[in-house]
């Protein structure tokens, strides 16, 4: 581990027993050495989740594998090392979400560079069109680019995209 470097990952966990442990396993299992864990209990993110900051040490080539393993375990990675998702944006998609393959939609976003899906809420009532709220994380200054991607996807799949009205005064 002579070339190991320190990295910081910022995670967002739901307030359930075992969640922290679930989040630490992918790090240990992929060659990461835990240095410190700052569990900000009582300090909730806007989504009502608990922010956790983990410092770890690993060989440089292992770091991306650790972040990927965390995401695969369903953990929201807000910030990983130098790759910082500085801005968050929520959009609602309406229409044939399930018929047009929801997981394909998520994959579509994950394949966008500079963009990450933080979470998804789906509402599919029997007697109305389904809607999904996606919370996206974009790199600094990347929100308008992210929204352009959302419009592109909505066009492709015949969905209605309800974009946020950017209100920097409030969100700053």
């Amino acid at each position, binding site marked *: 581990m002579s070339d190991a470097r320190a990295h910081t990952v910022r995670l967002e966990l739901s307030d359930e027993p075992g969640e922290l442990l679930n989040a630490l396993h992918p790090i240990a299992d992929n060659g990461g050495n835990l240095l410190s864990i700052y569990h900000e209990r009582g300090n909730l993110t806007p*989504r009502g989740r608990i922010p956790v900051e983990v410092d770890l040490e690993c060989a440089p080539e292992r770091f991306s594998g650790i972040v990927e393993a965390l995401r695969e375990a369903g953990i929201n990675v807000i910030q990983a090392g130098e790759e910082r998702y500085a801005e968050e944006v929520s959009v609602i998609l309406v229409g044939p979400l399930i018929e047009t393959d929801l997981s394909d939609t998520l994959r579509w976003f994950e394949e966008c560079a500079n963009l990450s899906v933080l979470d998804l809420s789906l509402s599919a*009532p029997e007697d*109305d*069109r389904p*809607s999904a*709220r996606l919370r996206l994380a974009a790199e600094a200054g990347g929100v308008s680019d992210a929204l352009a991607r959302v419009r592109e996807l909505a066009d492709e799949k015949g969905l209605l995209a*309800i*974009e946020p*009205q950017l*209100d920097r005064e409030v969100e700053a």
Partner: protein
Amino acid sequence: MRLAVVGAGAVGRSVIELAGEYGHSVTAVADSRSAAVDPEGLDPETVVAEKEREGRVGSSAPEAALDAEYDALIEATPTTLGDAEPGFSHVVGALERDRHVVLANKGPVAERYGELRAAERASAGEIRFEATVGGAIPALSTIEDFGPDHITAARGVLNGTANFILTRMAAEGLDYEHVLAEAQDLGVAEADPSFDVEGTDAALKCVIMANVLSEDREFTLADAEVEGIEGVPGSALELAGEDGRTVRLIGEATREGVRVGPRLVPENGTLAVSGTRNIVQFETTHAGRLNVSGRGAGGPETATAVLSDVGRLG
């Protein structure tokens, strides 16, 4: 000033009734079938009573109003798209007679802005159209006062019907069809609500603001990117609510273009006006953001904007 009022709907009638209070007289009134003309000034009550009783304002032909003696023509006929007639011809007819024109009719300003300005240049008369955007809200005069170069964007909630429907859907958890029917019962929505719920009305207002903001480019409805609210289900409002947000039909005008569509806004934010209230928000170059909110429709409200314009005429 002596006013000729063309169009005897809610706005035209309110202008006739309120003109005296603002120190003006009404010398001619026309609806689509008739006209009443009196160079000494018409009695507002008589004209309005005649319209209500007979469905017409007088015994002359409608064209007589345009030929009458007046300083400013008030164009308050219904908004039409495309060639914006007969409103456009009314405006040009008055300008050719070197009279001023104040429009409450969105059609000519949104669809034939360039021609309108050309007709104004050839005339000793002036056109004003504050009432076409946001009823009583001083939207266009704010742009005028700041100077178009000092405003980078104008956006807002500009249609009361769409806003009423979205507000009720979110508050009561009701679906679109249910709330629309309720709005129609209350008289908030028309029997044919498409002009409002498809976003056309909001788009026309934004096209007008884009025209006022731009000096070298003319916009029409065809240039606007428009999405209505018919496709917004209750489930979308529910999801928005879980996140502290709600949905509003927002129109935005810049020198680059016009976009109208349902947008997510903070539930308690400035843009989340409720019911039939409107808001216009300006991004200014040196003074940050400016919000102007108020009643965006209604006879007396819109007549107030018309009469403010009359007061600004040189």
